[in-house]
């Protein structure tokens, strides 16, 4: 079950990108998603593709992982691309069949949308493949910290995130165990019509919920017994360290943004 999930998986390594501060990577990925919407012509897309491919190369991770990241979304992407091609009106018309019009602008738009999707997925895959989920929560906590001023419970959010991440594999194992136990009692998962399939989920879902409640209670007791009384007065074991590399990456991102503004038409 775990093997199929490429999304959110971490691949240990020691590349330049691996060693970056998680805050840099998170900010970079978010910033990239914003600036890709600035690109609106061939030359700017070429620049973006070159940038992403360079980043992929720097991770030293087999490009297959990135392709796999796109695969589950490929139908959604193609669907959007086809819609764009069919329903963009333009001046240079190449093909007309009844209400269906394919124009040069439409085709171009389709290709751009495709690139935009793929680049965004590549970029977020770089983030998840090279950053431990744990460091990612640290980064989120750090970036949320200013919002504590408006009463956002930053410590609680970070704690919930890290506990949630820590329990993902445990709950996956349990799901599989319950599924097998229910199969042994004659329940077919993923068979029959939608109604039957939904009904088969119930004997999986309810035990999973109940056991999560029990887990939560035991975990809360164990936390309390170890002196947990909320975020106040706590010190932190993990610390993020900003280095020269991170500044360099930030500068690169700034340059890329400027370049995009210049290339934009």
């Amino acid at each position, binding site marked *: 079950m775990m093997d199929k999930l490429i999304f959110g998986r971490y691949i240990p390594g020691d590349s330049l990108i691996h060693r970056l501060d998680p805050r840099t990577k998170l900010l970079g990925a978010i910033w990239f998603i914003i600036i890709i919407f600035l690109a609106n012509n061939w030359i700017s897309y070429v620049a973006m593709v070159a940038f992403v491919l360079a980043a992929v190369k720097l991770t030293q991770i087999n490009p297959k992982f990135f392709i796999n990241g796109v695969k589950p979304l490929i139908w959604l992407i193609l669907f959007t691309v086809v819609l764009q091609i069919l329903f963009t009106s333009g001046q240079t018309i190449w093909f007309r069949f009844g209400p269906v019009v394919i124009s040069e602008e439409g085709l171009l738009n389709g290709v751009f949308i495709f690139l935009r999707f793929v680049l965004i997925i590549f970029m977020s895959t770089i983030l998840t493949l090279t950053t431990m989920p*744990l460091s990612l929560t640290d980064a989120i906590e750090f970036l949320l910290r200013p919002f504590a001023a408006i009463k956002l419970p930053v410590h609680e959010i970070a704690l919930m995130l890290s506990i949630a991440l820590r329990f993902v594999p445990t709950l996956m194992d349990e799901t599989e165990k319950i599924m097998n136990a229910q199969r042994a009692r004659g329940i077919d998962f993923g068979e029959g019509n939608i109604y039957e399939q939904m009904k088969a989920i119930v004997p999986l879902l309810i035990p999973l919920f109940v056991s999560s409640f029990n887990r939560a209670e035991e975990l809360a007791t*164990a936390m309390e017994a170890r002196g947990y009384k909320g975020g106040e007065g706590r010190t932190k074991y993990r610390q993020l360290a900003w280095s020269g590399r991170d500044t360099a990456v930030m500068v690169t991102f700034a340059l890329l943004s400027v370049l995009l503004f210049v290339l934009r038409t």
Partner: protein
Amino acid sequence: MTEIIRLDNITYKYDDEDQRPALQDVSFSINKGEWVAIIGPNGSGKSTLAKTINGLIDPDSGEVKVGGLMLNEKNVWSIREMVGMVFQNPDNQFVGSTVQDDVAFGLENLGIPRDEMIDRVRNALDKVNMLEFAEREPARLSGGQKQRVAIAGIVALRPAIMILDEATSMLDPQGREEVLRTVKEVKEEEHLSVLSITHDIDEAAAATRILVMKDGKMIQEGSPETIFSYGEQLVEMGLDLPFPERLKASLKKQGLSVPDDYLTEEGMVDWLWTSISRM
């Protein structure tokens, strides 16, 4: 010897409508450096008792005193600093995302400065032989290893008392032995008092004193030798028979006369070879 835990006439009901209280007028004390085991069948109130000691449960009546402090709202956090607990399910008490984070969790709660924290985490992991696993995630550890991490989490806090609430009941024999050995070593090095709640005969045998509970009441108290000499009655108390006792029972069935008082494995071996050589 100084008393470290003292419970006086503790009574507790989970629910006001419960017919029978979970704990009825329980009193006992533990001395510094002692290893006390509490045994009893399921539902006899053992775990409830353990939770009363560090204030996870607030008794309806009676007094709890730990390390000279009376358990009340003001003292509860200082008492929790003195009492470390290891629970039954290794998965559900693992808070951190990696081994070292989990060990550091209790230290973070106390507000220990980071430099000292790093030292204490490494030391504690070294003591339970888990140092090389420091970066591992819990999903990739065995049950016994997770319990050793839980023990390290407590050792790092340097408590005076360690409570094992059926900490070995979900482990395989090897993991159980591993965890018990670790507890013994840590106890000697750190001069801890240990209170273990258990169904495991080996764990009970490691204790200096055994308390037997039934239906929320403390019904017996004595050294392992005294308790183990109850023979068949042990099963009712929620324990297995120790191996020498089982051997004696089988020998009895064969019509051989066996000594009545409890013998350890070595004692049994001695008795066997002396009786055979006399034949």
